[in-house]
């Protein structure tokens, strides 16, 4: 009988550890104490998507970010069906929507059967109100992540600008 309980708890422990590992890889949740991580896990929504199911459409009001726990997701421009990126386990997308309610700039579609965890703006605002220390920590990390993305975009633009100039010289 005790073996049965041990197995059940081990299963649960494994699943929790797996989610902890995924969350700790996300820059926004990095360096969080186990206690804080438990608070975060309690406010995340877990959703399951079938293959080819729309997670959100381009133009939808964005409310927050999605973290891929299992499966693959592709980010697509709806107008020309151009695939911008294919994301896998441990990746995240839509984090800008935590700060504003502007429409989603691209659609997200499940490439395979997926399990996603969702972290939304109402929960972040609620957290800021009742646990300002942890809320501010997340906001700081969010700002850092967006800053990193901006730097990377600048680098890409610089490279693109350089290659355009090279093309002009060549022609």
């Amino acid at each position, binding site marked *: 009988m005790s073996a049965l309980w041990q197995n059940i708890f081990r299963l649960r422990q494994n699943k929790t550890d797996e989610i902890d590992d995924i969350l700790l890889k996300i820059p926004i949740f990095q360096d969080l104490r186990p206690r804080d991580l438990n608070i975060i896990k309690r*406010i995340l*929504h877990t*959703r399951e*998507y079938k293959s080819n*199911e*729309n*997670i*959100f*459409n*381009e*133009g*939808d*009001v*964005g*409310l927050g970010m999605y973290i891929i726990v299992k499966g693959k997701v592709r980010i697509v421009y*709806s107008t020309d069906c151009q695939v911008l990126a294919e994301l896998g386990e441990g990746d995240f997308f839509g984090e800008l929507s935590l700060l504003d*309610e502007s429409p989603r700039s691209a659609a997200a579609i499940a490439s395979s059967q997926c399990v996603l965890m969702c972290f*939304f*703006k*109402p929960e972040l605002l*609620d957290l800021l*109100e*009742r*646990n*300002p220390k942890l809320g501010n920590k997340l906001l700081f990390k969010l700002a850092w992540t967006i800053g990193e993305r901006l730097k990377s975009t600048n680098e890409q633009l610089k490279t693109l600008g350089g290659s355009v100039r090279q093309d002009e010289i060549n022609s």
Partner: protein
Amino acid sequence: MKDKTPSLVRMILFFLAAACAVAFLFLIPEVVKLVVIAALLSYILDPLANLLESRGMSRTKATVTIFLAFVTLLAVAYIFLLPLFLEEMKSLEKGLSPEQAGVAIARLESTLVENLSFVGVKNLDLAGRLQSMMSHTGEWLLSHVVDAASLLTSMILIPFIVFFLMKDGREFKRSFVSIVPNRYFEVALYLLYKLNVQVGNFLRGQFIDAIIVGLLAMFALWIVGIKYFFLIGLFTGLANLIPYFGPLAGAGLAVVLSILQTGGFEMAVYVMLAFTLIKLFDDAFIQPLVVARSVDMNPLSVLLVILIGGKLFGILGMLLSVPIAGFIKVVIHETLAHYQRYRTV
């Protein structure tokens, strides 16, 4: 057509289920009323629980602390304010004894006939009208308030529901959101967020506004010299929860009681002046500060919505009609935008 049939059937089933749920709620109006009142109270108290949580308390401890503070407050009110309340009630009862009230009304009627005879005012029969009004009020009180059994049930059940809504409100919300299909999940969450902002801010603002206006009315009536300043102030504060109609009801009661107290208009003029000043102060300073401008509606729509709410659901309907109308506006706006997006995609 073949592809559309399942979704059409699903939609019809959904609407049927929703209609059944609404019909069921209409069959149990007392329970719905209890839950709505409890939800309102938990909305008002929620920021307090959040504040205690931000000081390091767990949600359960924060909720228990608020309840203990509330019980203490009730005990203090019982010890200090109940004697004043009872004294005023007794005094009001005496002041409105048939003989004294009859004299005051006769004096008032003669003053009115004397001064307004040029517009054709001759026989007003104020005493008869007042008596019929009082008897209707008595009937209303008997049917709504004096039902001791339901009052006791409400007094036990409401705090019980408030406690669990405050403690586990987030879990209830998460459970509700978890059953929403993936396609509508984010929209549902967005609408819940908007509902929370609209209704929550409006109710909390109105509640604080009602307390301030009630205290100001008490103070002003005490200065004017009205005997029942505490009772009228309390009524004015509570009535002030309903926009436009509430302040008028409070002022109306104060004017009527001041006329009955003195039998003349002199004090009534001061009372009207005091209420006008309070209303101006409320509109200029209190409302902009405490009532969030989350309900973006013009005054005519607000008036109509309150009238409809009052007609359908009584006082509770009048109180809730404005934030709910604001929420419905957001739902329609978002649904249309959502629909247009799906058409274009």
